[in-house]
């Protein structure tokens, strides 16, 4: 909402300082987004009198004027002027040398056709006051020459741009803003120094005398006013409906003051009738609709629900279909107006209009909202109806509108307006307990202070059974409950009046969300591994059959929610590639959405949400360094990142090679269920030739806690180290070899009666009995560490065979192992490996 400082001044009868006004409104009422100076750039322009007009010696169309610009500037300045209308003895705006003009800049002394000009006499256009460039602007002022133009003529102004909340329709007009400003200026002192009074209408007379003899409100829903039949058939859509008939108007240009008022808030002048209704809209927030009586069949005005399929060509020339959810204003035959939204081209006031039907209505807000959205039409009127106008203020508003129209367009109202209000409502009354004010606001507020604040913006408070009964003015539809009044007290007192000292509090009952902690840990783990966290837009095309579609997408591209994170991250990699970045390591933790198959309990049960973590890696394994060539990230780097993420995100899962058909890569398989909860492998992407291979992983994040690590005593005994190189036949995996090595070394100890000697065990014989069997102790893991340190294929081995070398550390934490014992374990292990897997020791 844009308000004019000058307009507010007219309502308050006092001068205002724009910045201070903005501050007061912001701190007490609604935020001011901007203060825009209007014509503030004319500070250098003076009022000057042309005392003599001579012919320019060298040009027929120019004149040479002698200008009196006041004693300070010079009372006989020679100025060259090209305007045909310049006349001696008249006052004009004059820009002396050194003054600046909008769009022209600072004036310099210069010669025009050989004669020096000491400034410039200005047209309206030169001053930015309009398009009129035909001649210089004659001033109608009594100011002495030399007076600043801005001091002589009411031109300068400020637009104050207010961010009005959806709850405050009263602030959508100057009167409402002035009311708040008056309260803020009084500062809760109860002072009545500033009151809001509607300014006199210039040229207003008793043309509309009938308006003053208001006819009593009827509970009827039809009647006749000055020959026009008015019928209210849809009181739900239009609870109160008033019509005035004004005859004999002359449609034409608005008077200057009216056009200026509207221009000050950025509204274009159209004609005196439209301007008058707009003025009332912005002054007191009552939307009005004026239509041409001559075009009204009947003549009748019928307010009813539209019939499905009825059509109307609105003012903008578009034919629109109506539905039964809309209220239509019709004449005897057809709809002429979509109530509260827009009128028809046909019924519009034109230059030839002489008799007006003036509608002043209250339309039901939600009805207007739905209609406005359905037809896609926004107007200042619908905006206000949607938020709720002052139903109780309608007669005053209509009276002022009639006065204004009669003043600016002539015409008379022969009969008082008709007021159809089948179910009149009274001002709402809301109870307020002073102690509730204190309970919510935290500091005691005296009853008298409460009353003062409330009455400063139009509430009327009266004591009632220890409480206060507060009458809510009609312009405040937002105030319906006690707490609304508490807010009024708080804001009118000023939020800055409340202390801000911390006080003790009771700790809450809500535990920290475990999921947040898991996400935090996961983020830090991946960041520590050199990955950068990304946040991608979860909107795009469908990424699989399970993708959830958006019913009302913003664009044809962003139609679905992601069911996986990797496609989005892959796009981000491609984006980085397009920026010539080769080394990319991104991860993201975010929600994905899939179609729910089971029967969820939530109302949104067809959508399942899961938190996923995904990562993509490509490029050099580490930053380049001059000491050695840095290899690119490969599958084994990916496996590390995947294992790291699985440990953090899905502790219930183990990393296993992907099952046949899934391609090269790994899966996170949940122990127990066998469910695959994550995958890792190479990714396909639109890669430039210089890009390195791209790998990625994605895992479902579990919110379950990871097991708490339990201390294992640090070994006090020495270890025995052995390296063994084994030849693995085709199809035998390192994992299966390691399993045998571990099993045999465990059995060896158990068979040796727990602690004593490590006898050479028979492969597998009696192994199962070992667990929990011997002597009550758990089997001692003497094979402490098993690390692959080499793999070899090639000469010396059969095709398909490979040699893998392990470094093994053996240790018994309870005693010193003897070399011979370890040798016996290895011998047994080799025997088992050979027997079970066909693995043999590699001869060096």
């Amino acid at each position, binding site marked *: 909402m844009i308000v004019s400082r000058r307009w507010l001044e007219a309502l308050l009868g006092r001068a205002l300082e724009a910045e201070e006004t903005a501050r007061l409104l912001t701190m007490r009422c609604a935020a001011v987004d901007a203060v825009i100076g209007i014509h503030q750039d004319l500070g250098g322009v003076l009022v000057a009198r042309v005392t003599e007009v001579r012919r320019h010696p060298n040009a027929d169309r120019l004149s040479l004027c002698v200008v009196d610009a006041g004693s300070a500037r010079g009372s006989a300045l020679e100025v060259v002027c090209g305007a045909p209308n310049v006349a001696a003895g008249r006052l004009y705006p004059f820009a002396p040398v050194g003054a600046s003009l909008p769009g022209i800049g600072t004036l310099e002394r210069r010669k025009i056709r050989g004669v020096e000009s000491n400034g410039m006499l200005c047209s309206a256009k030169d001053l930015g006051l309009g398009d009129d460039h035909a001649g210089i602007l004659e001033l109608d002022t009594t100011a002495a020459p030399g007076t600043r133009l801005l001091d002589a003529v009411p031109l300068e102004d400020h637009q104050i741009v207010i961010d009005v909340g959806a709850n*405050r329709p009263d602030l959508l007009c100057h009167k409402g803003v002035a009311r708040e400003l008056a309260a803020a200026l009084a500062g809760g002192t109860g002072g009545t120094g500033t009151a809001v009074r509607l300014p006199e209408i210039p040229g207003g007379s008793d043309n509309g005398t009938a308006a003053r003899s208001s006819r009593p409100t009827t509970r009827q829903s039809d009647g006749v006013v000055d020959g026009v039949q008015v019928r209210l058939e849809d009181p739900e859509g239009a609870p109160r409906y008033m019509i005035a008939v004004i005859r004999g108007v002359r449609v034409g240009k608005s008077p200057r003051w009216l056009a200026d008022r509207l221009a000050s808030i950025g509204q274009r002048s159209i004609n005196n009738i439209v301007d008058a209704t707009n003025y009332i809209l912005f002054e007191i927030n009552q939307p009005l609709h004026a239509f041409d009586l001559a075009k009204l069949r009947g003549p009748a005005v019928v307010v009813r629900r539209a019939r499905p399929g009825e059509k109307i060509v609105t003012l903008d020339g578009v034919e629109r279909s109506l539905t039964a959810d809309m209220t239509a204003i019709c004449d005897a035959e057809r709809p002429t107006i979509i109530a509260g939204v827009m009128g028809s081209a046909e019924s519009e006031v034109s230059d030839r209009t002489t008799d007006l039907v003036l509608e002043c209505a209250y339309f039901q807000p939600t009805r207007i909202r739905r209609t406005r959205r359905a037809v896609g039409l926004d107007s200042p009127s619908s905006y206000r109806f949607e938020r709720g106008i002052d139903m109780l203020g309608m007669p005053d508003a209509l009276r002022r509108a009639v006065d204004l129209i009669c003043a600016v367009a002539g015409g008379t109202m022969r009969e008082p307006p008709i007021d159809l209000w089948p179910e009149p409502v009274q001002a709402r009354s809301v109870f307020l307990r002073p102690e509730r004010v204190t309970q919510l606001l935290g500091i005691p507020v005296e009853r008298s202070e409460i009353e003062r604040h409330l009455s400063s913006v139009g509430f009327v408070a009266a004591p009632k059974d220890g409480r206060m009964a507060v009458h809510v003015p009609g312009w405040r539809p937002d105030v319906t409950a006690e707490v609304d009044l508490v807010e009024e007290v708080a804001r009118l007192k000023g939020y800055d009046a409340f202390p801000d000292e911390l006080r003790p509090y009771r700790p809450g009952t809500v535990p920290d969300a475990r999921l947040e902690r898991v996400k935090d840990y996961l983020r830090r783990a991946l960041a520590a591994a050199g990955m950068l966290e990304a946040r991608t837009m979860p909107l795009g095309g469908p990424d699989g059959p399970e993708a959830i579609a958006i019913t009302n997408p913003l664009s044809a591209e962003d139609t679905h929610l992601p069911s996986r994170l990797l496609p989005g991250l892959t796009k981000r990699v491609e984006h980085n590639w397009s920026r010539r970045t080769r080394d990319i390591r991104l991860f993201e933790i975010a929600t994905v959405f899939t179609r729910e198959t089971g029967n969820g309990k939530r109302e949104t049960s067809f959508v399942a949400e899961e938190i996923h973590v995904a990562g993509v890696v490509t490029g050099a394994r580490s930053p380049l360094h001059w000491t050695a060539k840095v290899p690119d990230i490969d599958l084994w780097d990916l496996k590390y990142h995947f294992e790291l993420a699985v440990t953090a995100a899905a502790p219930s899962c183990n990393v296993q090679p992907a099952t046949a058909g899934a391609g090269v890569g790994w899966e996170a398989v949940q122990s127990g269920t066998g469910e695959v909860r994550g995958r890792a492998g190479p990714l396909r992407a639109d890669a430039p030739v210089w890009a390195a291979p791209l790998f990625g992983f994605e895992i479902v994040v579990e919110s379950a806690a990871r097991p708490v690590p339990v201390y294992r005593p640090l070994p006090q005994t020495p270890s025995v180290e052995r390296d063994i190189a084994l030849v693995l036949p085709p199809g035998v995996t390192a994992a299966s070899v390691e399993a045998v090595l571990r099993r045999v070394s465990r059995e060896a100890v158990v068979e040796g009666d727990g602690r004593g000697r490590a006898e050479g065990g028979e492969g597998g014989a009696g192994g199962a009995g070992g667990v929990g069997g011997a002597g009550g102790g758990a089997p001692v893991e003497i094979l402490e560490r098993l690390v692959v340190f080499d793999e070899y294929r090639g000469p010396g081995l059969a095709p398909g065979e490979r040699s893998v070398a392990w470094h093994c550390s053996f240790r018994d934490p309870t005693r010193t192992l003897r070399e011979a014992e370890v040798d016996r374990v290895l011998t047994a292990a080799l025997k088992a490996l050979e027997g079970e897997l066909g693995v043999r020791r590699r001869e060096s």
Partner: protein
Amino acid sequence: MRDLLAALAQVRERLQEISTADARRLQELRTELLGRKAGTLTDILKALPTLDAARRKQVGGEANALKRELENALDARAAELSRAPVTAGEDLTMPSRAAWRGGLHVVTQVVDEICAIFHELGFTRAVGPEVETERYNFFALNFPKDHPALDAQDSFYLGPDVLLRTHTSPVQVRTLERYRPPVRVVIPGRVFRRDPFDPSHSPVFEQIEGLAVDEGITFVDLKATLTAFARRFFAADTKVRFRPSYFPFTEPSAEMDVACRICGGAGCPTCKQTGWMEILGAGMVHPAVLSNVDIDSERYTGYAWGMGPARIAMTRHGIPDIRLLYESDVRFLEQFTDADGAR
């Protein structure tokens, strides 16, 4: 015998010399002290058999201990010398050998920092679903049906009545349904608005909601808590102001501004010449919201607030366009890997 002990003491004094010897001198010392033929200590050990059993044991023990000590000292010094810079000719301006540095997204860092400050003020973290029903997203939060207040919350729908949450506020309702007061939670999360991308708007962005409900909570507590937050997050002398606002689910409603971080309050393009930057919206929980979750609004009161960490991150780090946050350009992300430690 006395001579031998004195000789041992003399040898012991040579230990100090070892610790400063250079490579050549070290070799000499080794020969001089432990040399097989004429080493000083070797000579002492050779003399042992001439002593009687008791003395032999005393002197022998001491001599052998000293021998081990000398050997250790010689070895340690040798190792030390071998570790020293190989030559003086190395160009030390050559770059180091680095590892990749990862990092958290700048928005994550701001979210974490904000949540950490509120954690100290007694707020635990809560979360909720991103897909919501109209009831949770609007009506339980006291949004009237068909009201213009819904205009600022233009939503993506997935089905009739099912939408992507437009704010984190539905988690207020979910939390209050599940837990009884006292409740003190912060709720970080992603929210969705049907706004096209432009430099300052994104259809998806982060929000942090906060909620405190208990007996005796007042507007003063709201102001105090949020002021304490602002002074902690920005600077201890940060100027803060509260002004009226409107949210259907709070009353009284407020917005909190801090003095512009760029111009210090004088007015600049960043603060649209106002001298203030809007940081969060807040208010006392509307009694209707409490009643909707069967909490006695006469007995319990509360406050709530919401803020946009993406916007705050942009202000703090001078990021001009919100799209940079979601583009995942590595060159952008890498700029903020250290931001966490900058404070």
